[in-house]
């Protein structure tokens, strides 16, 4: 059973998607550690280390993710988390933005999969496919 740490990053309290993600991941057979809303990047990394998770799945809805995720690359190497899959999804910019601008930016911050304004189930399908291809 794959382990997923999830939650909403930064000073963001949009919880509805977070609840649905929890339900969907469980329904897909993942073991879920849900940190809820308003979670800092450090808290996420701590939880990944502690639970020995396979996936870190971050949500951001209020547009402010960028300010919170710029240090991921650094933390990722510091904690030697090469094998953990890093995923982010939700609404990843203030104002209306294009996927083509958003995806490369967040990939450069160290995310493996980036879903800007992508429906949850579509995103989780991609994630599962990605995980099965890793093996």
């Amino acid at each position, binding site marked *: 059973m794959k382990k997923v740490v999830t939650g909403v990053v*930064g*000073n*963001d*309290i949009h*919880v*509805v998607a*977070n*609840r*649905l993600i929890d*339900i969907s991941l469980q329904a897909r057979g993942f073991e879920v550690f849900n940190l*809820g*809303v*308003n979670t800092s990047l450090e808290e996420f990394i701590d939880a990944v280390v502690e639970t020995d998770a396979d996936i870190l799945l971050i949500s951001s809805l*209020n*547009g*402010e993710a*960028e*300010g919170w995720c710029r240090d991921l690359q650094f933390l990722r190497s510091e904690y030697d988390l090469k094998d953990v899959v890093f995923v982010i999804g939700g*609404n990843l*910019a*203030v*104002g*209306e*933005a294009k996927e083509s601008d958003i995806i490369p930016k967040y990939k450069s911050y160290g995310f493996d999969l980036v879903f800007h*304004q992508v429906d949850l189930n579509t995103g989780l399908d991609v994630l599962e496919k990605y995980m099965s291809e890793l093996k």
Partner: protein
Amino acid sequence: MSLLQKERDIITRNEYVDAFDFDEIEAFIKNAPKELFISHHFKKRDRLLVQPRGGFPTYKKMFELYETFMSADIDVLPLTIDSNTRLNDYAMAKKMLTLSEENEMDMLNGYPLVNHGYRTTRKMVTHFNKPVSLRHGTPDARLLVETALASGIFEIEGGPITYMLPYSKNFPLDKAFLYWKYVDKVCAKYSTLNEPINRESFGPLTATLVPPCIVIVIQILEMLLSIEEGVKSFSVSFSQNGSMMQDIVTSNVLKKLSRYYADQFGGEDAILNLVYHQWMGAFPRNKELSDSLINTNTVIAAMVRADKIIIKTRDEAFGIPTMQCNAQSVANTKYTLRTLKGLPLIHDEEEEANLEAEVKAIMDAVLNDSADTLWRKVFNSIKSGVIDVPFSPHIINKNEVITIRDENGNIRIIEKGQLPLPDKCFAYEKSKVNLPASKTEVINKMIHDIGAML
């Protein structure tokens, strides 16, 4: 020096803030033009006031936004605060403001008022000479509200419940009550100088399947807490439910009972206003349909005879709206209100009786709590689940109440958790829906109902 003033001195001394000159501020409020006070506009009640949402990080863009709004003949200007300021993270707000200013790109979802300070912001407010409404979502809003009032912003939204349960994960609830007591006290104090400062509660809460009885109870309680501190002008509010009839019923009961409880608790002289929020849940990812939804809400706001409507934009599902789009929304709303005439006054005896009974039962339970002060009674009621807000991210919230929609779009309670609903009322709620058989079906129905406007 009074205790309150001592606290105010401490609160307003902060590394991100220039020293407050309270004497100067008092003089400013005393002499401020009546135009700036929304309470002054409410008094006339000659039309439904239109207020959008809006906040940009930089002063420059905020000023431009106001200019754009003015051209759409706006009634009330909004000042929406960014998420970091809401959670008192002024350091992050400062960092992101600097980045926004340097890169001409918005890194914040609102205006970081504390970092900008009142001296700067007041220039903008007095320049446009329209009432400004402070929109945030801040459990500890003491410094923010001091800054707002000193800037000439004379309507303060929020309260210890409505700005906690939807807006925070683990801010201590008891502290929130005390901090909002401070806010109410300061507002009451300034209200004696000129026109009253208007306080407004935030009825939409999580905007996700919250049943009207919970909304109304919370509206009344925040009103009573404010009245207790001397506030004389207060707006209760709610947002579109998803059923026109439920909106009408909610409005009728909310108006009736807020007046009733205000009078009971020494607020006979308080002026009460009704605010209607356009649909606060998930918007369709189609701008034309969003326009339709927005206009439908305008019609309903007029039908429920609100005093103010807070509007959305066609960009809602996409992100913070552009200025032009936001101003267009104001213009459309004003057009509809101008041309829409001959509205019927509607009642539904049965629904209203049921809702009133629910509200009174919960209010009784709160007021009969053994604690000695009102805020402690409310605190205990939230802790015990007598007040329970669906989809609240806050750890103290019970999260036991489950609601789904009936076929007319009404939100109905199918699990009452610890809500002290009379048996008759709960039976009535359940009689309106076909209860799904399994937990999975309930969840699927809920997901479907959250997306009622998609």
